[in-house]
């Protein structure tokens, strides 16, 4: 049913539909609305789950790990500093190949303190071994959240569902909410073979000597690569039931014949679409590429999506100081060596919640035309605010 609902409330309802056994979370802006909504559902008896209000994000991640290790379906959500406080546990969860789902309400990382949206938090843990899916709108976030439980079960990999903090979490918009009965049929019960069970005792998280460690890492990597297929199949299956797609690995919109492409993750995509709709006649139309699966990184799908482009603008919502944009660098890496690889124009945008206006589309298209343009820039930084030596 189509409802006008705030993103966070919708996510909480989607999580509840997946009937998690255990939910643990710690408050942090802008994730808090999600767990508040979940606790209300529990308090009203509309959701039957063990809700554990922990004393830190570190424990939130640990509680869901402990629960998931016993074969329970578990969920947590966080943002920003919370992601970083969890970092050690995140590596631990994926290293043990335990199925789990976590929402990250993407937010900048301090210092300086910023409660506003960018991708610094999830980017900081890009190598933690989790599947990372980025949502462009709240419909995708709801659909991806439910899909994430199934992807996680099928791959025995934890899934991080990234949605832009505030921009999506705090936005009320029409969202098609699935039916509980549909979800019950679509999401099979969790069967985790390696679960802790007194009837069949296993030791999890043991010391592993150099004789075996490389093999463990290899199999983790191989599982991530195999997850590319699972992400697509699950999205197909979802489409078969709902008629909607969550975004697959990569989605292409705009002009398929365009020679200029713009690639973005998350909610920036909608603003670019609108910008092109309004300014496309003057600024030229581009091929818009939406990257949903950041981990595993869909190299083949990206190559296909970028085929025939002369220029590719890659938008990063975070910065790796001393390098530039991470998404830009990785996209450049997978396109490198292709006979007609496009020139990459990598721009960081909307850092720390800077509003991204629809005019950004025309500005980006103009910047492409500059043959001396930088390979990387913080595109919307106003350098006049800085002392000359800091520019």
């Amino acid at each position: 049913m189509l409802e006008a609902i705030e993103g966070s409330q919708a996510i909480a309802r989607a999580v509840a539909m997946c009937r998690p056994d255990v939910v643990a979370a710690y408050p942090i802006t802008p994730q808090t609305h999600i767990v508040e909504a979940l606790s209300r559902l529990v308090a009203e008896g509309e959701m039957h789950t063990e809700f554990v209000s922990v004393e830190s994000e570190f424990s939130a991640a640990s509680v869901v790990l402990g629960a998931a290790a016993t074969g329970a379906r578990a969920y947590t959500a966080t943002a920003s500093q919370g992601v970083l406080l969890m970092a050690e546990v995140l590596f631990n969860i994926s290293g043990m190949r335990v199925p789990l789902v976590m929402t990250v309400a993407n937010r900048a990382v301090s210092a300086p303190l910023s409660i506003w949206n960018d991708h610094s938090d999830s980017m900081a843990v890009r190598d933690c071994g989790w599947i990372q899916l980025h949502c462009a709108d709240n419909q995708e976030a709801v659909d991806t959240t439910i899909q994430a439980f199934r992807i996680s079960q099928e791959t025995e990999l934890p899934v991080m569902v990234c949605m832009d903090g505030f921009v999506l979490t705090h936005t009320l918009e029409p969202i098609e909410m699935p039916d509980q009965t549909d979800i019950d049929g679509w999401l099979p019960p969790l069967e985790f073979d390696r679960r802790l069970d007194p009837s069949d005792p296993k030791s999890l998280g043991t010391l592993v000597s150099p004789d075996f460690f490389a093999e463990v890492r290899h199999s983790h990597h191989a599982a991530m690569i195999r997850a590319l297929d699972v992400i697509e199949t699950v999205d197909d299956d979802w489409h078969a039931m709902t008629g909607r797609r969550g975004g697959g690995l990569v989605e292409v919109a705009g002009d398929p014949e365009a020679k200029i492409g713009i690639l973005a993750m998350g909610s920036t995509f909608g603003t670019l679409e609108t910008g092109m709709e309004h300014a496309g006649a003057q600024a030229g139309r581009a091929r818009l590429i939406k990257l949903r699966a950041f981990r595993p990184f869909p190299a083949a799908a990206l190559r296909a999506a970028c085929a025939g482009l002369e220029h590719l603008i890659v938008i990063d919502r975070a910065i790796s100081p001393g390098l530039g944009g991470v998404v830009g660098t990785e996209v450049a890496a997978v396109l490198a060596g292709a006979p007609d690889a496009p020139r990459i124009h990598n721009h960081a945008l909307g850092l720390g919640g800077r509003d991204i206006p629809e005019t950004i589309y025309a500005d980006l298209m103009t910047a492409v035309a500059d043959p001396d343009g930088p390979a990387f820039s913080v595109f919307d930084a106003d350098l006049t605010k800085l002392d000359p030596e800091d520019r």
Partner: protein
Amino acid sequence: MVGVMIEYRIHGRGGQGSVAAAYLLAATAFHAGQMCQAFPAFGAERRGAPVTAFVRTDEAPIRLRAQVRTPHFLIVQDGTLLQDPSIVAGLRPGGGMVVNTTRPGDEVAAEFGCRALTIPATELAEEVIGRPIPNTALLAAFLSVTGLFEIASLSVALRDRFSGTTLERNLALVEKVAATIRPDAWKEPADA
């Protein structure tokens, strides 16, 4: 304005229900069959600090995520915010503002050079709801003067959000305000 995306900006102070007003306006449009989007200018403000929220309504799905810079309409929940002349920044020509103040509408219209409607929403809310939350009265006034969406759609939105006595009193307030504001009761700026 059928077929055009309409943008709204709501100004208020923390604790006055400005974000709730934005959500209610968007939900009203939704129940009137429109697509909608509402979000706050995300801040870390505490009670009493100026806050802003944005709404968009359209026939078509809304993809744009930027803050509203050129609103068609302003809803101002606190008269003291009129001390800042930039409150009307970006207001489109022919746009209008609905303000919670006891000041006369033509005075506000003249000061800001735009169409204006003023109502003592805080007093009305205290009288009918028993709490100084001006958002419902302002929305009722806004819908009455613009005729954008049926008052009935606001009632549906209120029913989704409230229940019991709070709902009854809010519905009564909407009815009371709607009965007093004529369609197009804007005060025009003197020089218009």
